[in-house]
């Protein structure tokens, strides 16, 4: 299986890995990995979360040292013990979480660590000239005097790329680069990557988004459970094949199309009228949001992260009182002065799967059984006059684990020891187990691997078909598109558009997310 792409001599390889193995205690994160990346190619590396992509890249960038194996860069053997070594070898890295100093200007960020002069001014002057040249050559223009923290994420990423180019990187590694971008920003990034390729820069793109792999890469390697399981030329493979290689088994393509039993006159689960939530400084997280969710329907809330979706969930789940506006949720009217608390919400059969599962969903130090009880600790089943009934709690947890395929199925294990996907399944199991009438869901599959995504989606659709009103907030457009019956798009605290789930497409949504779309064309495309 693991034949490297043929017809390449050692001379035209930008990067070659042989037998890389990395262990963390008893866990083998990378096992005997070999990889050949052709000079001037865009090479994709795909794999599920936890497949070992990040470990491999950390080894390449000197965060970790491999226990075994050899690395050669540009045909020469390389020892990479630190970021400094990696930079010297011509490797540039665009991390998933940007490595920028927010209070510095773009110029200061770029020269940091690459200053040749002991005084700041000459370095800044040299960088200004060099950046003008790079902007010209690669179409990477940017306001070099702006503070990095003030830039939109797309431009921050551009700063990261410029940082690498300023250090003369000829091998650029991008780790999940599109996770935080709008589709338009992602397109722009891909244009930049293509122009880098034209000028001989080798690009390694790490992602779990197969569409991107198909769009832009020349070759692709698949990681599964720490091993490199396949290398393919992109034009001789398909998304289906790659997905199966990643997961290691055949995947059914699931059709989540709506249960037509949903009647047009289905009663309303959530009705939000003109909701406003102000920050302390008077700016608005929510700026007059109105929407409705009917029973037996999934309303998808799309938008680039940070445009008010989280605020909406905070208010509807009873955690934050709105500044003004009212909403009716499962028949209970609520407003700034009479907001039901989260526990009242639970009594009203309104459940919430929070966006940030580690902060709001579970307590890391608790056992799985304790986490699966959170919010229901007062129920008589589990609580005898203030004393917890541990046995029935464990029984509950065990049955939740069985229903949602949580692995390992051990109620006594610490919540923190589960992978992100399994933590999420446990939280979802806890909330869905109460068969709510209204379900608020935030980022249900963030950091969750493909196998678990499938199960989570199925469970949500099951709930919908059972008549639950579901508000789904997600930054994953694919998820919104495949699950939602209707979709609203949020931008800067407002709902800027609504589209029927069947008629929606990525381009329209993307434009709406960037607020560059004329509403009257919303349905036309």
């Amino acid at each position, binding site marked *: 299986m693991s034949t490297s792409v043929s017809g390449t001599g050692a001379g035209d390889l930008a990067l070659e890995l042989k037998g890389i193995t990395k262990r963390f205690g008893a866990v083998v994160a990378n096992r005997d990995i070999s990889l050949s990346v052709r000079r001037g190619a865009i090479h994709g590396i795909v794999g599920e979360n936890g497949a070992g992509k990040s470990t491999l890249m950390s080894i390449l960038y000197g965060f970790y040292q491999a226990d075994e194996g050899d690395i050669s860069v540009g045909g020469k053997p390389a020892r990479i013990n630190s970021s400094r070594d990696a930079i010297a070898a011509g490797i540039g890295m665009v991390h998933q979480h940007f490595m*920028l100093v927010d209070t*510095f200007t773009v110029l200061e960020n770029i020269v940091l660590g690459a200053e040749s002069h002991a005084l700041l001014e000459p370095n800044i002057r040299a960088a200004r000239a060099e950046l003008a040249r790079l902007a010209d050559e690669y179409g990477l223009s940017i306001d070099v005097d702006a503070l990095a923290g003030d830039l939109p994420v797309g431009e921050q990423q551009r700063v990261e790329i410029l940082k690498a180019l300023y250090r003369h990187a000829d091998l650029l590694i991008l780790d999940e680069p599109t996770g935080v971008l709008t589709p338009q920003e992602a397109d722009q990034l891909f244009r930049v990557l293509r122009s880098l390729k034209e000028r001989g820069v080798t690009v390694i793109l790490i992602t779990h988004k197969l569409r991107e792999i198909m769009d832009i890469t020349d070759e692709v390697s698949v990681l599964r459970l720490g091993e490199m399981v396949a290398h393919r030329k992109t034009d001789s493979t398909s998304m289906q094949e790659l997905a199966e290689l990643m997961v290691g088994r055949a995947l059914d393509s699931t059709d989540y199309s709506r249960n037509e039993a949903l009647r047009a006159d289905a009663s309303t689960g959530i009705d939000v009228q003109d909701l406003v939530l102000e920050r302390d400084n008077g700016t608005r997280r929510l700026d007059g949001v109105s929407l409705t969710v009917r029973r037996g329907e999934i309303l998808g809330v799309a938008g680039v992260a940070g445009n008010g979706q989280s605020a909406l969930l905070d208010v509807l789940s009873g955690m934050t009182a709105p500044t003004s506006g009212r909403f009716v949720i499962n028949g209970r009217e609520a407003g700034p002065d009479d907001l039901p608390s989260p526990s009242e919400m639970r009594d009203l059969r309104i459940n919430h799967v929070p966006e940030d599962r580690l902060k709001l969903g579970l307590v890391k130090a608790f056992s799985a059984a304790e986490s699966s009880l959170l919010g229901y600790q007062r129920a008589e089943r589990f609580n005898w006059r203030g004393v917890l009934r541990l046995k029935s709690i464990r029984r509950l947890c065990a049955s939740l684990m069985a229903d949602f395929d949580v692995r390992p199925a051990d109620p006594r294990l610490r919540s923190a020891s589960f992978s992100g996907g399994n933590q999420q399944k446990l939280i979802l199991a806890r909330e869905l187990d109460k068969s709510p009438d209204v379900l608020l869901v935030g980022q249900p599959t963030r950091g969750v691997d493909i196998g678990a995504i499938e199960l989570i989606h199925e469970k949500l659709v099951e709930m919908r078909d059972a008549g639950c009103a579901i508000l789904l907030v997600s930054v994953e457009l694919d998820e919104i598109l495949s699950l939602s019956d209707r979709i609203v798009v949020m931008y800067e605290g407002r709902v800027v558009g609504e589209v029927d789930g069947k008629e929606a497409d990525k381009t329209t949504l993307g434009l709406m997310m960037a607020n560059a779309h004329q509403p009257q064309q919303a349905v036309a495309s």
Partner: protein
Amino acid sequence: MSEWLPSVFAVLDATLRVSTPLILAAMAGLFSERSGIVDISLEGKMLAAAFAAGSVAAVSGSVWLALLSAVLVSVALALLHGFACITHRGNQVVSGLAINILASGLTVVLGIAWFKRGGQTPALSGDARFSPIELPFAEQISDVPVVGRFYADVISGHNLLVYVAFAAVVATWWFVYRTRFGLRLRAVGENPLAVDTAGLSVSGLRYSAVAICGLLAGIAGAYLSTAQNASFVREMTAGQGYIALAALIFGKWRPLAALLACLMFGFLDAVSIRLQGVELPGIGEVPVQAIQALPYVLTVILLAGFIGKAVAPKAVGVPFVKER
């Protein structure tokens, strides 16, 4: 006018003298905190340095040896703080507290063992102290009204370390904002991971920062026992390390603003000395204790109410753990 001018000048003159250790300590703290290391051990470093200077000056009679030993002791404590906080990622407040307790106890114990004067060092005189420096032309222009007097009475006539403190502010500003080292220093206190991925050593930068912090705190300590006073007295720092830290926060970790804060604290201190025993119209004589408490009360009020939001270096107090 000519009646009250001399007393105003006297207060300003005293302000410079009392501000000096605050200024040096605040600049010391600035280097440390800008690099991401909280330093409440300014107090302990100053105290230990003051003791070292007082002892060495008493024994050797050389103020320069005294200054050198003060700096060495203070840098050693700073590196100890660094070892705990940088190498071992310990809690920075606990480590600082430990150093303060260590300095407070050790100076007294050693002082009693060596000099047998209840923890005090022998009184210094002559070359064992920093003596006042008459600036050029001070005599000649002192007859010029106001400006000349100001130059002669307030600016001139201090010891070397007072001028060093002001030079340290300018130097600190220049280092932090105009040099490569300064850029890296500011970066490592804001986002050490960015510094690490840029191929720089986070520990290296932080160690250099705490070492510079030790150097400046050492000078501040030497000033206390060999310039402002003529011997070491137990607990002679009397919370000035904390006041300097407050001034640093008050100045939002910026050298010039911190200087102004130090001068303000110094001024309050100088005024309070001046007001002792003075009959205030309508109030009568204010108890000495109330006046002495004034700078501290004002510190609390200012810190609580008027400083606004002080945005600390983002990574201050957080040990750097290289992990993904």
